[in-house]
């Protein structure tokens, strides 16, 4: 990100500032208009943006295309769900841990558990690269999916209806939609700020160096494996936090959180938003969720009955974005086609050389 030219950086700062101001003003505006629903919708978008941003940390900056990231979102959600079940009937998890609905315990615990599960999974997966990495992360996510489907104590496929939201100290109250919104916004902004600092730090430089040319980075004496593993675990933990928040927002957690197409959704968000950009995943999450939310309705407005077939339009939209908006939505902020940032992230193949990929085949 440092390589972008000064004018681009300035423009980006301005745009980010404007976006943040708009986000801060959204709840009072929506409430004044008598449309509280949009605050809840925006909260869910912010939470998915957090999940997408955590994936972007490893996918965008580390070149690790995880096709199983939704698993960690699901684990975070299940921490809230399982704790709720035990709080409800006074039993204890594995006979040891009592249930709770205390958010001060649950939110950090969700991060901890997701991170702890990400550690061994990352340790095995990071032995591979490229397509193998995509598929092995998918394999672990599928294993966790089937594990949760089989847990009859926690209703298997049916999942857990979380009737009570996590409690947090004043002034945060998850039952109050505006309060929940600002919490989600604060968490997202904090994580993006952390990402910004990380990427600019020595840690981030090693990560990006490993992405561009792992062998060279290793030849320079960096233990790239360890750096990548730390990033993988951190991303998993933050995804877990997003899951815990999402379970609170929807009042439900189930194996569907971990389904492979959810992992696919997260990748879609990152890619259409702009891989390896700070605001990209949030923009991608916003676009995808707004399309999902309003496209059927808009189509029905055009031709009654058309809304039912909305996916026949969503598919080609995704294809067009891939074909023509190659820099993602974040590219629009930079404005200039072929901007410095883009050249850095997605170099065109030089003549006579095979196209460079984000993974090496051998």
């Amino acid at each position, binding site marked *: 990100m440092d390589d972008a030219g000064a004018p681009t950086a300035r423009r980006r700062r301005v745009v980010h500032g404007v976006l943040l101001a708009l986000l801060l003003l959204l709840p009072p505006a929506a409430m004044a208009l008598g449309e509280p*629903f949009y605050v809840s919708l925006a909260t869910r978008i912010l939470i998915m943006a957090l999940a997408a941003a955590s994936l972007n940390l490893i996918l965008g900056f580390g070149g690790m295309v995880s096709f199983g990231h939704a698993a960690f979102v699901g684990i975070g959600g299940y921490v809230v769900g399982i704790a709720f079940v035990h709080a409800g009937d006074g039993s204890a998890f594995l006979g040891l841990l009592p249930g709770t609905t205390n958010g001060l315990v649950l939110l950090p615990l969700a991060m901890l558990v997701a991170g702890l599960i990400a550690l061994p999974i990352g340790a095995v997966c990071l032995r591979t690269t490229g397509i193998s990495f995509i598929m092995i992360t998918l394999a672990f996510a599928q294993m966790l999916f089937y594990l949760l489907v089989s847990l009859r104590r926690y209703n*298997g*496929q*049916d999942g857990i209806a979380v009737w009570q939201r996590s409690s947090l100290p004043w002034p945060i109250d998850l039952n109050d939609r505006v309060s929940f919104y600002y919490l989600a916004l604060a968490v997202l902004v904090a994580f993006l700020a952390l990402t910004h600092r990380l990427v600019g730090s020595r840690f981030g430089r090693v990560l990006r160096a490993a992405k561009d040319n792992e062998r060279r980075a290793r030849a320079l004496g960096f233990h790239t494996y360890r750096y990548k593993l730390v990033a993988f675990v951190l991303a998993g933990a933050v995804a877990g936090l997003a899951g815990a928040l999402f379970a609170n927002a*929807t009042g439900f957690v189930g194996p569907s959180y971990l389904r492979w197409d959810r992992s696919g959704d997260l990748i879609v968000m990152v890619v259409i938003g702009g891989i390896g950009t700070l605001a990209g995943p949030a923009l991608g999450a916003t676009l995808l969720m707004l399309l999902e939310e309003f496209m*059927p309705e808009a189509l029905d407005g055009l031709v009654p009955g058309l*809304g039912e077939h909305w996916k026949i339009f969503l598919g080609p939209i995704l294809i067009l974005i891939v074909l023509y908006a190659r820099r993602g939505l974040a590219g629009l902020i930079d404005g200039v086609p072929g901007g410095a940032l883009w050249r850095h992230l997605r170099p065109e193949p030089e003549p006579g050389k095979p196209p460079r990929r984000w993974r090496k085949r051998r």
Partner: protein
Amino acid sequence: MRSIILAAGTAVLMAAQPASAQELKIGMITTLSGGGSGLGIDVRDGFMLGLEHVGGAMGGLETEVIEGDDERSPEVAVQLADRMIERDGVQIVTGIVWSNLALAIMPTLARSEVLFVSPNAGPSALAGEGCSPYFFNVAYQNDNNHEAMGQHVQDAGYERLFLLAPNYPAGQDSLTGFKRYYTGEVVGEVYTQLGQLDYAAELAQIRAAEPDAVFFFLPGGMGINFIKQYEQAGLKDEIPLFGPAFSFSQDILGAVGEAAVGVYNTAQWSPDLDNPANLRFVEDFMDRYGRIPSLYASQAYDAALLIDAGVRAAGGNLDDTEALIAAFETAQFDTVRGSFRFNTNHFPIQNFYLREVVQLEDGTLTNRLAGTVFTDHTDAYAQDCSM
């Protein structure tokens, strides 16, 4: 999402009930795209036919049905419920086909005190201790059809049964329900994977176990896979196959063809059930949509009739939720099932019938009544419900 305002006849009815100038908004959340959309579309179509049959105005109120595609995903269903309640102001939600989706949206609905009239999903988790005043099921409790088949198999004198169901809560409920009434020997009990494609291994196990009969519960595509493979393995003529209605519903029959002919299944409804309401429903449904209605369509049709009767009994007043719930509990309507009333847990008390799959002269397959298994049957969980 489609908004349909059917105002026909509203003016007349409004005159009869001057107290109310309210509009009834109903959220139709169902599966319209991807796998399982056949069931969702049947539910939607059955419901819309019901709305038409009550003159487009439920309980005399101008009625708007707001449609949403849940993509068979619990999270999407919750989002839709949230939007329909918060933004569109629906007072009643219906349409959900799948139990896991019904369970997922209950907190959202209960928190907003919105009624949920389930046209299909009836999980045990909402029938016993977890029952909710806001939840009404117009179909069945999930165990019921399996219980009826357990009773039938028991009565028919089969003594060695092989049982098969998917490894998920509804599958476990299914076998529990079946064994509640079947007390003979179980020579094999297999839980298959959700969405399993190939059943060759299970078929070999069945052949080796030499049962008198096989009971299976595999809804949707899983059932189609199983029935086709069962016939191809040559087992259909050796070991009779039994299942709940879901395994031989109208949506499945077309796909499995002759493999299903002569098979018995149990349900609370059949297209040839002889009562005026059903005759009208089946005839008009076939006229309108060009296909025989499925069990799911019949349930959604009844859901529309229930809402109409309930709202009417409440005098068209949608603001007093408690009174509305009380009105729904005792609502009288011309059900396509002949008889229907709610138990204390808001699940039906009704008859269960034996049906046989037959081939009509034009080649289409459908179910025909073959007997009555239970009269005024209740579910096993109602006594745990304190409402």
